[in-house]
């Protein structure tokens, strides 16, 4: 029924190859890889919530190398300054003029580790750059490289000394995926692979190898393939029926009595764009309701806020969203 065009068939293979390449290094995180690709194809940004040690950095590093993209990582701390991320103008003593020093934001894939540990002004500077895709240093406004994707992480349990991202800033992230611990069989596989890592000899000494040493520098496909995949994402057909589905779910979040804050129009747009990318990744020419339901949690959950009464009743945003989805099919 879902016959792909030849070009889209090639792109689906390309995207599958990327997933397989990442799967060789990172075990049991297929969904995260899929969400990262969705963010990349739609130029959205991704927020990952999960415990430390779930291979977030390794995952992003592997994807960036598989697609042949620049990768930077910034560990957010309380004393970080906006200039530490976006860069600054430095006085060159030899020439007597100011020289622009580009910050780590000038990259394709930026991993903002523990974004909620930085002060709000730093978060604001990053989120502004994410939105506008350009940075102003002194009198110069410089565009960020393309593609540009921010993958931010935050730890959901260790909240002391953190600055929680407000709803308006959370809304800038197209997807917020909650990482879970791997299944027992995946956990076993992780341990087995770790046992085989061995030792790397270098300069007369030796050091234990890590998973990062296994990441291949050979890219899958070419940058043109990625551009073609992004173009193909925009060509994925979205039916009127699918639009009605999106509007129906967004409307339900706004009218639900347990929700103080429902979805913004940006949430509907994100749902649409992400569904298109997922359709391409799954080898379809059109988005179907499965895409919608699969992505609803990652698109909607961080954009809704429970009412005081619902919180007092011990309800969670996830429960409310499941209730909304159940009601929509009953």
């Amino acid at each position: 029924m879902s016959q792909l065009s030849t070009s889209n068939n090639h792109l689906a293979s390309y995207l599958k190859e990327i997933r397989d390449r990442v799967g060789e290094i990172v075990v049991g995180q297929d969904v995260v890889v899929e969400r990262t690709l969705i963010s990349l194809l739609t130029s959205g940004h991704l927020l990952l919530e999960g415990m430390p040690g779930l291979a977030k950095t390794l995952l992003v590093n592997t994807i960036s190398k598989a697609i042949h993209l620049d990768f930077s990582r910034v560990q957010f701390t309380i004393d970080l300054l906006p200039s530490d991320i976006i860069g600054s103008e430095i006085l060159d003593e030899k020439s007597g003029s100011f020289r622009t020093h580009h910050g780590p934001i000038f990259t394709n894939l930026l991993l903002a580790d523990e974004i909620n540990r930085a002060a709000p002004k730093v978060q604001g500077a990053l989120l502004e750059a994410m939105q506008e895709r350009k940075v102003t240093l002194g009198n110069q406004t410089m565009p960020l490289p393309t593609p540009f994707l921010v993958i931010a992480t935050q730890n959901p349990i260790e909240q002391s000394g953190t600055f929680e991202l407000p709803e308006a800033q959370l809304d800038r992230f197209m997807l917020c995926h909650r990482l879970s611990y791997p299944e027992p069989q995946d956990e076993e596989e992780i341990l087995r692979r770790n046992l085989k890592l061995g030792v790397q000899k270098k300069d007369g000494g030796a050091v234990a190898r890590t998973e990062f040493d296994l990441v291949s520098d050979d890219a899958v496909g070419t940058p043109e393939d990625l551009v073609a995949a992004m173009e193909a994402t925009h060509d994925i057909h979205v039916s009127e029926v699918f639009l009605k589905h999106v509007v129906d779910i967004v409307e339900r979040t706004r009218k639900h009595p347990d929700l103080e804050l429902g979805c913004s129009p940006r949430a509907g747009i994100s749902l649409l764009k992400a569904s298109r990318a997922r359709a391409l990744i799954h080898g379809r020419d059109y988005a179907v309701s499965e895409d919608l339901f699969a992505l609803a949690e990652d698109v909607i959950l961080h954009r809704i806020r429970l009412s005081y009464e619902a919180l007092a009743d011990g309800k969670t945003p996830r429960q409310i969203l499941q209730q909304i989805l159940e009601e929509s099919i009953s």
Partner: protein
Amino acid sequence: MIVVFQFVRRFSLLLCAMGILGLQVSAEVDQPELESSLGLPIVLNDFYIAGSKAEPIPRIDSESSLVIRVLEVKPAADGFRYDLEIYGLDPGSYRLSDYFRYVGSNESLPQLSQQITIVTEHDLEGIPKPKELANVPPENVGGYRVLLTVCLVIWGVVFLLILFWRKKKVQSEEFLQPPPTLHEKLGNLVRAAAHGDLSDSDRSQLERLILGHWKQKLPEIENLPASEALVTLRSHPEASPLLLKLEYWLHAPNPSIDQQSINNLLDSFRDV
């Protein structure tokens, strides 16, 4: 004649001298006894004491029964006149001579005959009297437990009203107009689809209701979240062919499917 004149003159001088002396003696001896109540002041104006300047003997302990304050000292012939204010601290009769001395001397003045009598009674006129305490029972005392009980009952009634009134109202409305069931809604939409008059909203609802139908029908996915249930349905041997056709009809660009095929597709939902 001259002798008589001299006699009269001497006699008159003698009478004058005796008169003056008599007045002076009466001023020192025949002074009236003064009486006052305990703690209330006696004021003596122009009290004459002959001789050099006198002063009250300092009151150095609590044994002394009079407190004397000199208000003013005025010089007079062969002595001084004093304005005094005297307070009695113990009841009894006291000679003022025991409480005065000449300045620079420790001797008292025995020639002062003024008596001061301090009594415990006092004239009630002009002194504010304490109010008579009437034995009137206080008003509005008590009833606290009753008030507390009444407040508790009112609070309980309001609380129960808040809990149940709105729910009962909602329940009664629901009872009057029960919402259509999934299969009723699905049947209506399938019949409308057979006539080819489904709007986009209707087709959207039709798809969601069919998903809901399968979710209710298959026990293995009944309790799964909607997203996971859909993934299972797409690979389910019974549901999958139908759902994929439905997806193709509803979502594919320019689906090549005729009305008869749609009717056949939805036929199984006509009488659910």
